[in-house]
């Protein structure tokens, strides 16, 4: 490192594939940022992408990312903003080539270097690894992967920040990755900019906490925030969060001026505890962060300072996300109106279940909810309910089975209830529900040395 910047600004631009299309553009144009971080990959996304790639070898990545880049590349290149994104899915190289193509079309030839991080995809190596004794035991159930081996659709190790740092060091301005952790996409820019060592555990932990806070986009800046939610200003124009980090590992959470939303201690705390396990051990490939050491302070309007973060050495394992075909499900709904809306919906549920029994249709699970009464709070809500006064209730009933035929037969039992069940029923405009394939998630571990991250650089 020749010189260290006083502060580095990493902007969160996308909290999941499907997040606000306006956010990345607003982040690169609304004020100064050094990096734009975009997270695209949920657990089951990889299996969908793997399926696309099996049909067409040039696919298998988050296509929305390419559209987004087309919109922001001129600004990004002009301002020298770097981008880290795990939009590459199961085909990061194809994603990079698509972005390169767009860049050339925009007249940016010779002005852009794209880094590609791969090596996370274990699908083709799975049998070899199993044969060598890597059991990929399910972290929740302890079962070996052999149980479902013939149904596996995708298998990806979670890579950490290191290969992203390597790509940045090789001059990449856009780094497109496969399954890199959400937090690694924020940590890597900080390691690169400040020259943090991979074993500077407190710094690594701080960068990981920063990544955790902004990886869900506006959920850290007023979106989905319960604390005093009615007073959060102008969510229509919400500003996505930005980490303003310093070399010592402390950082501020901020957002661009003249944007909506709110950055305060209560909201940042909500995001810190989101999807939290044991707070003393937030494990990533890069290190282990202790969330009980985090100190928060409101140091200005829409500015929260994060300090004190302590970390511990990384483990010798990587997490592996495996997706496999599980079976089928279908969910049907009908709406019942006052008077006695809840009683009517309950009667319809009893009648439907009786008919399924009469047809000798058994399922792995049948699940009924009365939306408007108990769907989210279950029996806790029913205790406090004025049942007679409810204006309407949606009956929502779902089944799950390995057998597609049974699930399909179930879907034909919903509509008849309109004419041959309890009265005052409506809301079937959507038609008969379709049996859906269930792709389930199998979390496992693998020894770190078995996974070799790869970095490639493409000049546009």
């Amino acid at each position, binding site marked *: 490192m020749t010189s260290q910047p006083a502060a580095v600004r990493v902007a969160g631009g996308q909290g999941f594939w499907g997040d606000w299309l306006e956010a990345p553009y607003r982040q690169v144009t609304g004020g100064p940022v050094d990096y734009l971080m975009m997270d695209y990959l949920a*657990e*089951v996304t990889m299996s969908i992408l793997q399926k696309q790639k099996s049909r067409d070898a040039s696919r298998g990545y988050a296509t929305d990312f390419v559209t987004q880049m087309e919109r922001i590349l001129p600004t990004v290149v002009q301002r020298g903003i770097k981008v880290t994104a795990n939009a590459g899915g199961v085909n990061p190289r194809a994603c990079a080539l698509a972005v390169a193509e767009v860049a050339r079309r925009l007249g940016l030839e010779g002005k852009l270097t794209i880094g590609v991080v791969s090596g996370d995809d274990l699908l083709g190596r799975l049998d070899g690894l199993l044969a060598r004794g890597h059991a990929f035991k399910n972290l*929740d159930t302890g079962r070996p992967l052999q149980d479902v081996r013939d149904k596996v659709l995708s298998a990806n190790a979670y890579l950490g920040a290191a290969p992203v740092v390597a790509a940045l060091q090789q001059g990449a301005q856009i780094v497109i990755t496969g399954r890199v952790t959400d937090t690694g996409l924020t940590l890597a820019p900080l390691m690169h900019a400040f020259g943090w060592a991979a074993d500077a555990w407190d710094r690594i932990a701080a960068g990981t906490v920063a990544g955790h806070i902004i990886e869900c986009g506006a959920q850290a800046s007023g979106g*989905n925030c*319960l*604390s005093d939610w009615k007073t959060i200003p102008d969510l229509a124009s919400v500003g996505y969060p930005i980490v303003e980090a310093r070399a010592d590992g402390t950082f501020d959470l901020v957002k661009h001026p003249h944007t909506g939303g709110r950055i305060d201690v*209560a909201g940042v*705390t*909500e*995001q*810190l*505890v*989101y*999807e*939290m*396990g*044991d*707070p*003393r051990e937030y494990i990533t490939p890069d290190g282990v962060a202790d*969330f*009980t*050491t*985090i*100190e*928060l302070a409101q140091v200005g309007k829409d500015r929260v300072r994060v300090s*004190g973060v302590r970390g511990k050495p990384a483990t010798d394992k990587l997490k592996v996300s495996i997706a496999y075909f*599980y079976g089928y*499900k279908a*969910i049907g709904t009908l709406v019942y109106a006052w008077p006695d809306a809840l009683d009517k919906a309950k009667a319809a549920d009893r009648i439907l279940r009786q008919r399924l029994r009469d047809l000798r249709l058994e399922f792995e*699970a049948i*699940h009924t*909810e009365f*939306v408007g009464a108990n*769907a*989210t*709070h*279950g*029996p*806790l*809500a029913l205790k*406090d309910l004025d049942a007679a006064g409810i204006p309407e209730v949606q009956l*929502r009933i*779902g*089944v*799950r089975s390995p057998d597609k035929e049974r699930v399909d037969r179930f879907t034909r039992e919903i509509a008849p209830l309109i004419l041959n069940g309890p009265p005052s029923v409506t809301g079937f405009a959507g038609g008969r529900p379709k049996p859906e394939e*269930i*792709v*389930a*998630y199998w*979390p496992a571990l693998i020894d770190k040395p078995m996974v070799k991250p790869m970095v490639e650089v493409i000049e546009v």
Partner: protein
Amino acid sequence: MKKRLVDIAHARSGDKGDTANIGLIANHPKYYPLLVKQVTAARVARHFRGMIKGPVERFELPNLRALNFLLHGALDGGGTISLKTDAQGKVFSTALLRMEIEMRGGR
């Protein structure tokens, strides 16, 4: 005097497989000891009886005046398998806020 948690705390929840997590955060530092004393793992397990199949774990984050609960077996298999509206446990947090605690002598 009793109050509902919704009046003295806020919360956010999420999922990990078939486990829902609830982060419960005191609105003011003076309420945190009340949460620690009264909102125990055992009490939360009773609160959610009939809604969760597994045990409840609790972790303390005094630095954030927050408690983190893990509700195992809460999501009908979780993620894509689940038939629930709240398959990812997003609003379990608000169900916890229905709980009542004693404001006097409860510290």
